[in-house]
């Protein structure tokens, strides 16, 4: 077996969850790597959309920012940002949206706004950006985040975007009809919401990861599914494509 990092495992696992006919609203960082890895391996026809307006883009290197020229140059077309949020996101055309954040709770609610009190912040984070409406308008949401006690918290300091709310039917009670977070893909495991309570439950551990590692990196009492499998390790091809992508990206961002 090839060696791989937990980050690589997370990206590969996220990529595998995408289908050839998905239409993805892609964020910068891990989601961008995962979506493009999927495009370069098993899902060549996947549609990638970045909120800057680029429809059906196929970047050769990963963008540093959501509006890099590479995204526009390789896109089918580029629309204005109001159109992106009205016709494409709110229009219900996105099958999978990616989210991540500074804090996550067990129901997939996310905070990217503030640590501490909103009016008296300890750490002022960038804010929601597209997240509040990505969270409610995409068919389903995949969350990618590295596990840590600082990030996986019992209670969010601020609810930037809705996941399953307080669990159960709370999401629907907010008038939201999309599925919300259906997968949480971390550097250690795959999680899925419990069908009834909607609390995230570990369904698969990445190779070599123990249940204790999960418990020690999550600020709530982690739950495990009845059958917890092992995530298949990244294949040689997946790693090769991903590493090539990162190498091209690094070269490009450093000015070649």
């Amino acid at each position, binding site marked *: 077996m090839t060696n791989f990092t937990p980050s690589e495992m997370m990206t590969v696992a996220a990529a595998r969850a995408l289908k050839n006919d998905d239409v993805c609203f892609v964020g910068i960082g891990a989601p961008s790597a995962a979506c493009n890895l999927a495009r370069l391996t098993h899902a060549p026809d996947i549609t990638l959309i970045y909120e800057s307006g680029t429809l059906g883009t196929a970047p050769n290197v990963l963008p540093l920012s959501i509006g890099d020229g590479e995204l526009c140059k390789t896109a089918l077309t580029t629309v204005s940002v109001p159109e992106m949020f009205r016709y494409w996101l709110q229009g219900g055309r996105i099958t999978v949206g990616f989210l991540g954040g500074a804090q996550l709770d067990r129901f997939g609610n996310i905070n990217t706004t503030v640590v501490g009190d909103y009016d008296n912040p300890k750490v002022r984070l960038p804010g929601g*950006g597209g997240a509040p409406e990505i969270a409610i308008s995409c068919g389903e949401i995949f969350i990618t985040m590295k596990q840590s006690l600082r990030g996986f918290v019992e209670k969010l300091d601020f609810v930037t975007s809705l996941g399953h709310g307080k669990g159960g039917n709370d999401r629907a009670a907010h008038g939201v009809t999309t599925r919300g977070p259906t997968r949480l893909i971390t550097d250690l495991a795959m999680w899925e919401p419990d069908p009834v309570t909607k609390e995230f439950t570990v369904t698969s551990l990445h190779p070599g990861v123990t249940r204790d590692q999960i418990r020690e990196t999550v600020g709530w009492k982690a739950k495990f599914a009845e059958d917890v499998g092992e995530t298949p390790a990244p294949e040689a091809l997946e790693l090769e494509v991903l590493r090539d992508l990162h190498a091209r990206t690094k070269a490009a961002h450093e000015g070649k």
Partner: protein
Amino acid sequence: MAKFQCLAEAVAENLKDGDSVAFEGFTHLIPHAVAHEVIRQGRKDLTVMRMTPDIIYDQLIGMGCVEKMIFSFAGNPGVGLLRRFRDSLENGWPLQVEIEEHSHAAMANAYEAGAAGLPCAIFRGYRGAELTRVNPNIKFIKCPFTGEELAAVPSLRPDVAVIHAQRANAKGDVFIEGITGVQKEAVLAAKRSIVTVEEIVDDFGGISPNATVLPSWTVTSVVAVPGGAHPSYTQGYYGRDNAAYIEWDKVSSDRDSFTAWMEENVLKQGPEVFETRVAHLKNAG
């Protein structure tokens, strides 16, 4: 009809203390040169708005030009947080900036409504999101046909919109292409507008019949500032200076290095410096 001006004149005539100003751009075409001129002219008490305030808003805030900021994502894109913005919000240096915070969808719709001459925008948004608790400018209305609750925000109608574009023609019409963000909406929503361009040409030649063009009579002032978007990029002209964005994280990390950098790179410079800054990025355009 747009007036062709030099940058100092365009800012002096159109952008006053206390104005509300949108320096728009979505990664692409961010009007850095104008923001630097505003800092040099020492504007105060501005209400600045932008979906994605980044380095220039960090600079405006750090230099004490800003009273209030309306925004939806305040970060150094792909790099991290905005350290001068944080210092203002967390420690009140040099001033405590007031914030009005929205989501991207809200801001995009609010500019669109502003361009459309409407007092507000409605959209399906903010469900279960806590910004509704802290921002009184988010309300909800009922669709009169279905009863569905929709979010409403006031339209954005700045005193001044500032954008950077590829070209103006001899009449002062402005041509933009690539990632156009909300720039057209910002200009149409604003009372006045300053547009910097890479070049002024006789006519646009063979552009698409549906190209994004702002007619001269919708623009107040046109200024040629080659490289004026640096370290952002101008598609067809030069690439993004990613290294500068990464460097900013360090420059802005403390007050002294920030102040020294601004002195050296903004206060002591003029708009002509931008052309030299993009010289090494031409191949990447």
